[in-house]
């Protein structure tokens, strides 16, 4: 075991942790915002929306994330430069980076998995509560905002921590599209120093620590929400 490379590569590792967390937070946050309508239209939407939403969930859940990521990175990545004028636009520095495609793929993936869960959560809110809200004269929109969504959110809250950990475990895939996040950093160190095990072991320990922190964080969040059992 030789960790003499550690001080030299510390900035890279810290930057890697930052990128991993950025990918995680972006994909969870935007993915969840997308998952709410995806789950909702599967329960109440018009038929064509229902089909589209459940088709989206099936495709996302039925194909490997690696293939989705490569489809976006290589597919979209080779398509964008053909659009005239895009190289001069303000979006180009973003569209050029692997980070953008990784964030996009992870967001869509989380939206697909969480959309299916949200569908179940919307379905498992007792009908009587929604009927009571309607009987109070709430508009369907108010029912959703005040009753349906908060209740559904409480139902998924205990599963959200697990989903976040699953998402954390998916982030190393970004290394395959040139993003030097935590796992990518270990790969880089291995390339530079020819040490095989030490970088991998160090990254493994950091992932374990991150998993532990996420578990604690969600336990804390869950305790903030009053629950009658």
């Amino acid at each position, binding site marked *: 075991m030789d960790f003499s490379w550690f001080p030299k590569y510390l900035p890279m590792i810290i930057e890697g942790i930052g990128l991993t967390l950025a990918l995680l937070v972006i994909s969870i946050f935007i993915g969840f915002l997308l998952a709410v309508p995806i789950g909702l239209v599967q329960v109440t939407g018009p038929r064509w929306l229902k089909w589209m939403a459940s088709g989206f969930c099936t495709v996302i859940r*039925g194909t*490997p994330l690696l293939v989705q990521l*490569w489809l976006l990175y*290589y597919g979209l*990545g080779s398509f964008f430069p053909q659009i005239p004028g895009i190289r001069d636009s303000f979006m180009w520095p973003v569209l050029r980076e692997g980070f953008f495609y990784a964030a996009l793929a992870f967001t869509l993936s989380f939206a697909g998995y969480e959309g299916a869960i949200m569908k179940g959560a919307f379905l498992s809110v007792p009908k009587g509560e929604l009927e009571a809200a309607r009987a109070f004269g709430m508009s369907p929109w108010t029912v959703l905002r005040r009753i349906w969504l908060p209740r559904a959110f409480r139902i998924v809250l205990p599963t959200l921590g697990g989903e976040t*950990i699953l998402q954390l*475990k998916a982030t190393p895939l970004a290394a395959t599209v040139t993003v030097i996040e935590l796992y990518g950093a270990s790969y880089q160190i291995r390339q530079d120093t020819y040490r*095989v095990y030490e970088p991998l072991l160090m990254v*493994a320990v950091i992932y374990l620590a991150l998993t532990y922190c996420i578990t604690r964080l969600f336990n804390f969040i869950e305790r903030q929400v009053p629950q009658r059992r």
Partner: protein
Amino acid sequence: MFIAASNWELLWQWKGNLLSGAISTLQISFLAYVFGLSLGLAGAMGKLTGGKVLKGILEVYTTVIRSLPELLLIVMLFYLGTDMLNRLMLTLGYEAMRINGFAAAVVVLGFVMGAYATEVLRGAIQAIPIGQIEAAKAYGMSPFLLFRRIILPAMLPYAIPGLSNLWLNITKDSALVAVVGYSELALQTKQAAGSTKAYFTFFVAAALLYLIISMTSLRIFGALENYVRRGQPKLG
């Protein structure tokens, strides 16, 4: 939209590569699944009936494996496994050998899945009412007969949904061995896409192949679940 007529031709030219990739994905997944299930069954039994040391080791195995990214584990076990095997060969006086990529992929994926399978099977066995097992013991059944006649059929209804998920996960995780250079569907697709520059076409085709595998598997597991639940009251 992005698939023009010429791309169909490309796809047709490369169909052999994609299909052989799909077949090796299925082979890897199936063998790794069988290996993982065996590990899982042994692990579940160990966790339920083993001594303190065995339980502790299994707890570390399931906790560590399940909280690390699959890609990291696959890369780590791939190097560790080949390295250890070669050192073993050298100390035994043999030459270092080139590790078969297929075998390595199967062992590594199976070892990772074993941790998840341990938890699924442990939960399923614990869900059996203890009285049934006690009754079987009271009849004087040997441990093997007890397992075959009582534990196995009684736990399957609880285990099948979890095992179905594990199978779907392993077909998708098998794409990760592309990263260590074993040529299954994902890597074949990447190579075909790279040499024809028709990225969209090939990755969409690969996604469809994976989707077909997933949908067919879901059907089969659904039928299997109906079969092991025969004689039980319908849910819901």
